């Protein structure tokens, strides 16, 4: 029976190919984590806002002498930003997260005491700098931040 069904195709020569589905190795959890961290940095920099609204990468004002001076932070509005401003704030968020990660890594085994001190110091420093810079940025945007008006 199978000879009859194969007859129309007998003039074809089947090529000798060995196809197999590519074996993509599963990435380790930490690799996936760093990818997620990178995308978190991008999203929190407001990259989607940049792609849709297309603000300038840095603002400019002309002062009294007619010089054009750059303005990094778009003032008085929380729902608007420039591209560089967003990226620098995103870097601060990432640095703060890194601070906590460094603090956890400082407790790992096989670290000498000097290295442990170093990691703890740098972790705390990352967190402090990131938080305070974020506050500075926010005060530049909204001058009335944390000033109770009533």
């Amino acid at each position: 029976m199978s000879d009859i069904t194969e007859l129309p195709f007998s003039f074809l020569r089947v090529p000798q190919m060995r196809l197999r589905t590519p074996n993509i190795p599963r990435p380790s959890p930490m690799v996936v984590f760093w990818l997620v961290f990178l995308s978190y940095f991008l999203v929190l920099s407001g990259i989607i806002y940049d792609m849709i609204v297309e603000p300038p990468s840095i603002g400019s004002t002309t002062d009294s002498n007619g010089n054009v001076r750059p303005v990094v932070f778009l003032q008085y509005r929380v729902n608007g930003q420039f591209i560089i401003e967003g990226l620098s704030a995103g870097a601060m968020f990432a640095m703060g997260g890194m601070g906590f990660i460094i603090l956890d890594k400082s407790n790992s085994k096989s670290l000498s005491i000097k290295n442990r001190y170093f990691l703890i110091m740098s972790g705390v420093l990352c967190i402090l700098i990131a938080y305070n810079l974020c506050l500075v940025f926010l005060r530049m945007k909204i001058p009335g931040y944390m000033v109770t008006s009533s």
Partner: protein
Amino acid sequence: GTLTWFNSLLGFHRVKMKTPTKELNQVKVPAKILVADVKDVLESGVSTEKQEYLLKLLILSLIYLLAFSTRLFSVLRYESVIHEFDPYFNYRSTKYLVNEGIYNFLNWFDQSAWYPLGRIVGGTIYPGLMATAAAVYWVLHAVNITVDIRNVCVLLAPWFASNTAMVTYLFAKEIKDESAGLIAAAFIAIVPGYISRSVAGSYDNEGIAIFALILTYYLWVKAVKTGSLFWSAACSLAYFYMVSAWGGYVFIINLIPLYVLVMLLTGRYSSRLYTAYCTLYVLGTLLAMQITFVGFQPVQSSEHMAAFGTFGILQLFGAFNWVRSHMTPENFSRFFKTTLLAILAIAFAGFAIGVATGYISPWTGRFYSLFDPTWAKENIPIIASVSEHQPTTWASFFFDLHILTFLFPAGMYFCFSKLTDANIFLIIYGITAVYFAGVMVRLMLVLAPVACVLGAYAVSCTLQTYAKHLKKPNPVVVSASTSKRNITVAQALPVQRELGAIMLSGIAIMLVLYSFHCTWVTSEAYSSPSIVLAARQHDGSRLIFDDFREAYRWLGQNTPDDARIMSWWDYGYQISAMGNRTVLVDNNTWNNSHIAQVGKAMASPEDKAYEIMRALDVDYVLVIFGGLTGYASDDINKFLWMVRIAGSTDPNIIESNYYTPRGEFRIDKEGAPAMLNCLMYKLCYYRFSEVYTEQGRAPGYDRVRNAEIGNKGFKLEYLEEAFTSQHWLVRVYKVKTPDNRGGIVNL
């Protein structure tokens, strides 16, 4: 080939049951011992478990009270009044439900909205919010606590926020442990991203939807961890409540299948996952279809197809797993290849037929714009015009989350370093929530709970590490040379206890700063009723603008009962609820071309607009004008959206006609003639040239656009002024009726 890949996934089939560890803080103490506990505490030392239980109870009660009280700023400053626009429709529907009963409510056809089309309210709302408020109202009245329905509506969201804090405690407890649960509950009680939509007076779907969301996710994690039918069924009931509450239930029914797929890909398939998802999908879909507004969408629309596809894949997975255990490997490989190909072919053919015949409807615009954010800007101006639908900037993230923006990646790190079934769910929820919050500001609401839980995870891990430092005594100083013994723990630092104390106090300070920020943001930014405006005068005293309610009351008292009011769609719900009059378009925005008609009328010159208004049977026109007070969200600032929406259906309305030749939008002498003569301009600036608004400026100076108006002293031919509120915020005009011989007469 494919078979080895498949085998590798199943090879990690392990049954993971969480064995409850007999830790002291998980022992449950009956409540009747509580009274004896208090006496015990007072008299002698009390056992650690009872101490911990009391402490936990105290903390949770404080969090409950805190979540409620921090949302009461506007009630204390102004009065107990409903805010914004959408809540007014919800309030009106709840009043109808309470007065008319359930069956009349479900069959309600509203003739006073979208004249002359009407609106089938029973079939086009999510009734969960109204049902919840009505249930609270009836329960209170049954025990003779007669609270007015308005107060029930105003205070429902803060009460549900307290409940959300409790459910978040349970959720985080399920994922990590009780200490993380307590921190998560404290975070979510005051996080500004959630407060903005659940403050007292904000009577909107999100107020109860977030409670239902976290409840569903908590029950889902519990179902996956235990694999019991009971928890899965409870999860489907919570999902039903979510479907009845908010259109964002689509997030749940796509996140959970995504989680199942990721579990399959990471080789964590188990019978518990199978039981949980199959129960949830079947029961949940059946229950979801009970809501009239949802109807047959769970089996028809593309937004639900992912759940259906995952259901099929899970069945295939389970079936192949079972067959494999009964066959020899070579037989199984042949069987696997042929059957898989056949089933995939049939499924693909079925899906293609469904899409081609239109049975499977494509993604609706609202949800499609989440994946392609640029699509709405070009295609549907209404979606693009809502300010809540704009993408998010960094400042919005920091404003709404504060330190959670730092703790979120830290929490992710801790989750990734110790992957469990529950952790993976949290990770996926976090990633998708961050992306969607980045696309649309309004969805920051969905990010806030997961940011709180992940932040609590990070804080809890950090605190546990450094609290351990506090308990161990300082070690003797070890010599610098490292010995060759096995190092099982990190080498202890000589200043261990001091370090622990410093870190603990540092984290405590950070949390205190978080609560300062949250309270400031709640008080200053998110507690304005928006129906009542306030401004500060030069001497510091507060000036209240109550023009909106004044105008709506005037409408209700001084116009005929069947008068039709034309205004921009923003104000439709408020006019219906407070003015009790028929409106042409309202915030439901379900009919784009009807709104475009209104936009065309506003953008045309007075004679053309009069024809449109006569065709639509309009009696009164209402506009919002901020030029006298400096109120920036008035109709002139929204005017370009009216032009765009009108232009999307009528190609004669061209947006560039309303700009100056240089491309600016101006209302002074340089303004475009089309702009200076359109109906909106005339209605806003009628008699405005007689008014002095600012010292040192000519009369007719618009304080929002900062310019003197260009077209002054004109007269209205087809309308006449009926009412202008005290600060000129709301202006109402009556449309004159034609007389028998074609002229205009005032009736």
